[in-house]
């Protein structure tokens, strides 16, 4: 039922995993991605009567999570998350070695570049849509994307060489 708590719950359940995956690309760590996405959902919940009427509520939550990722809150939340992680033992799934390596490489890029990468290559937004979502000129998005791609390519190529040498 799309009223009251039920629709928030359905929205949250349906979009949480996807948003964590997208923010993982930006922040480079699963726990940090979960922190900012959870915090964004907390805020969405508090404004749900308004957010639910947005054309794309998921975009609102992602925007908030991206803002949190680029602010000091990420550090504050990381500390706060310690409390959560000290809770009852849970099975903590692990990312694969390849995923961790790629996430680590991505962290070497400027955050704005990672943001553009995820919106374009993962979410699938056009450059114009990204510009609208981020509130920046199209040219800025293009430049961020271009620089991020080039740097990522260099980093991955360098790592590939290192791996090659290590195995060679």
């Amino acid at each position: 039922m799309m009223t009251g708590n039920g629709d928030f719950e359905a929205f949250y359940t349906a979009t949480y995993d996807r948003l964590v995956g997208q923010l993982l690309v930006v922040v480079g760590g699963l726990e940090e991605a979960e922190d900012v996405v959870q915090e964004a959902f907390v805020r969405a919940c508090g404004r749900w009567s308004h957010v639910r009427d947005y054309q794309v509520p998921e975009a609102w939550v992602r925007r908030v999570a991206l803002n949190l990722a680029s602010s000091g809150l990420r550090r504050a939340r990381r500390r706060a998350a310690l409390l959560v992680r000290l809770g009852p033992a849970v099975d903590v799934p692990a990312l694969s070695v390849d995923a961790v390596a790629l996430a680590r490489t991505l962290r070497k890029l400027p955050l704005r570049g990672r943001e553009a990468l995820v919106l374009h290559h993962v979410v699938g937004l056009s450059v114009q849509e990204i510009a609208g979502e981020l509130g920046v000129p199209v040219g800025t998005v293009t430049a961020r994307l271009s620089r991020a791609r080039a740097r990522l390519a260099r980093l991955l190529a360098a790592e590939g060489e290192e791996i090659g040498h290590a195995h060679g």
Partner: protein
Amino acid sequence: MRMDELDERLAGLAEEGARTARLPAPSSIRHRSRRRRQRQAAAGVVLLGLALVGAVIVARASSPAPSGPVAPPTPTTQAPAFPGGIVPWIPAPSRQAAPARPAAVPPGTPACTADRLGATVGWEGATGSLVGSVRFTSRRGAVCALNGYPTIQLLDQHGRVLPTRTGRSGRSQVTGVLVRPGAAATVAFVWRNWCGPQPGLVGLRVTLPGGGTLVPTIAGGTPRGLTARCDAPGAPSSLSRGPFAAELPEPPPSPLEGLTATIGSPPAAAAGRPLRYTVTLANPTQRPVSLRDCPSYMEAVLLRNDGKAVERHLLNCALVRAIGPGQRVTFAMVLDLPARLRPGAGVLTWVVESVGVGTKVPVTVTGP
């Protein structure tokens, strides 16, 4: 790097992250949101920027942590009388509150069939996807069980089925859900990648595992003409749905949420010895807060060098039945610091986990 390769690698990472993400219960998100609003209202505190957000909020009744040995708090006129004004510490084991659980399905409960249920559906757009849920309610006092997954089909304005590839989602263990008057069930669904002609009014048809088909009523406010975005022409449209889930009632707010906590602790403590400190719980609200349902708390020293000491105990409520409006009560606390802790700086954290009321102060652990 080729663009399609970049797409693939980044999307692969995001998908793996999505698979690995641990979904906290929706109630925990609602709880955090509600508690934040209550705190803002009760304490009159605007969250001053992002740094104040988190598990810990310094509230109106807080006082600075002492810089030396723990001193007894300033007594208030309403504070209960204890030796030294401090409720003694007791090593009582913590109690974990049982999570809200839906009613079990009694043996012999018949499977729900379409004639026993009413159904409504609503959806909304979500970055190209269409996300919705179907809510099933009892008709004419029926008591029955829904098990597993329904079959869901999307219909165009003429009632024709839209071709989609169906799938299942949902991480939780699939259990039977009891439907009776006052207890509803829901199924969430996500529709992605529609590249066909605009279908006009989109409706839904649900076939139950127990038999029968329902066409749910579309809830008001649902964007009826909305379709999933065409992301990949040539790829099939997909419709995934979760299992039946019980619609849990909202847990009642805990009066403990109105409390604020402050720590009085020496700035340094030695590894291998108990850290003795105090926690003052203050009630800035206009109503008394009962401790009849005595809360458990977690106390922890978390060092930047990854050392930590964590304990959980029950608050000593035997001597304090309630904290009156404007009243504060100070409790003695003890946390054993293992000798293996490496010296370093960190925080001392104290929190009532069930409601998130807590605080933390800097602490330095020295050698034994």
